[in-house]
């Protein structure tokens, strides 16, 4: 399975990464090479094998449904590139 320029453009958009047009071919080559290499897994018989999402064999614990923090807007926005009165500012999204 090899990727072409259009595939990479699409994946890059899905991942919201701007990739200059002139880099697409090179990237397609690199990703195809990695994908060809990982395809060796096809030769492993995994019929009836459960997929492993985590090595922890415990059920994730539930915590009490209580408020544990909050009301610290200044800390929440302390590192914001643009902030105003406790809000994060972004480019206009509604015309």
């Amino acid at each position, binding site marked *: 399975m090899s990727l072409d320029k259009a595939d990479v453009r699409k994946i890059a958009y899905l991942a919201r990464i701007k990739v200059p047009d002139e880099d697409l071919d090179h990237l397609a080559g690199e990703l195809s090479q990695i994908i060809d290499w*990982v395809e060796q897994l096809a030769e492993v018989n995994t019929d009836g094998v459960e997929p492993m999402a985590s090595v*922890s064999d415990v059920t994730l614990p539930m915590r009490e449904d209580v408020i544990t923090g909050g009301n610290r807007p200044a800390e929440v926005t302390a590192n914001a590139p643009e902030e105003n009165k406790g809000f994060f500012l972004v480019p206009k999204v509604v015309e």
Partner: protein
Amino acid sequence: MSNKLNQLTISEARDGLEKGDFTSVELTESCIGAMEKARGLNAYITETPELALERAKASDERRSGDGAASGMEGIPIAVKDLFCTEGVLTTAGSHILDGYKPVYESTVSNNLRQGGAVMLGKANLDEFAMGSANITSYYGNVINPWKATDGKDLVPGGSSGGSAAAVASHTCLAATGTDTGGSIRQPASFCGIVGMKPTYGRCSRWGIVAFASSLDQAGPMTKTVRDSAIMLNSMAGHDPKDSTSSPKATPNFEAALTGDIKGLRVGIPAEYKMDGTPEEIVKLWDQGTQWLKDAGAEIVDISLPHTKYALATYYIVAPAEASANLARYDGVRYGLRVDGESLDDMYMNTRGEGFGKEVQRRILMGAYVLSAGYYDAYYKKAQQVRTLISKDFNDAYEKVDVILTPTAPSAAFAIGEKMDDPIAMYLNDVFTVPTSMAGLPGISLPAGLSSSGLPLGLQLIGRAFDEETLYRAAGVLETAANFSAVPAFVEGA
């Protein structure tokens, strides 16, 4: 004992501090001096000498002299710049976290801080811990304090390359690292120090910049096995803020160093004898086996049949998790923002400029294997193979207590090598990735020198949550290897 305070081990410094031979301030000053002299190695992204002296002074004031102090009280350490540190720039080696000063402290660095450890600065690393040579950091390459015979600069390994170089050059007594596929053990091997990746769940991941959450684990990088045990005791422990943190009690790891491995069953996995592994590494592995045998261990040949698939499995699972974890860097809440016409443009510009090439490659790879139509063929398949890799280890541990392997397929290589071929670079982690996939503890310790005079590590792999046996075996191996070579940088210092 060394007469230069910065060259002490944690256990030596602990004794000296307790006896009042010197203060934490004196010890810290010695490290700060060494850190300044070692700037050419680029092991630190941010130095925090003032903070360090303040904490060292507080430690000296706390110390009561009744032997009740924690093992890390007053000990100067470097912290990998993947741990969020309150009020101190935290970059993950990436442009995209420009100017980010967390308002909180990661659990592990906080445990160390509460235990009295003194942070000297934030250690350089591969961007978002993605790399095996510390050549992907936005803040530049780290240089290994060891030199090739031809005088070329060598990589320190990665991703915890800054931590490894900082310890090996004696700018600190120890450092924190994180390991996702070998990022503690491989740089430890390249720099001639001890690197321990504990069992997944032993140390809290809370406040550590996430790479691949089902694999990431923090651990100590130290000069000796004993130091590793002391430091892990301070780092580990259950944390309700990380749902995968284990509720198991933390044993006294240092007490496990009995020096007695009579009857211990040591597994030698046939599949780790890979084609193309240099003869000197195979020889060292045989030597390590012999050392353990001489100390009374029983050597058992074992098989881990899915070993050869571990790397390919890793390079599906880790990028998939990374692509999800790194979605949070959007230019809105922290770090770099590159403006755009629309919100989407702003996201794309920020992430296009903020992430380096290797990180972008992995995010794209992850997004691809998780995308509709490919999920089952790649991601689910990899998760199934992961089950088989884990089962291999479970089967082996029916017959053995620990497993001995080389840590890496080579000694440190020159900066510039293996850079054009991602897969050649990924092969660095061929011996460390299977352990990570199974969530098991693994420790690398320096066991010998290559023909070009560079350190080579051996790796011991243990059962889940049995770091004690691992430390016991590692202690014996360390004594037998009696590794005493000194890096060129330190010799010349």
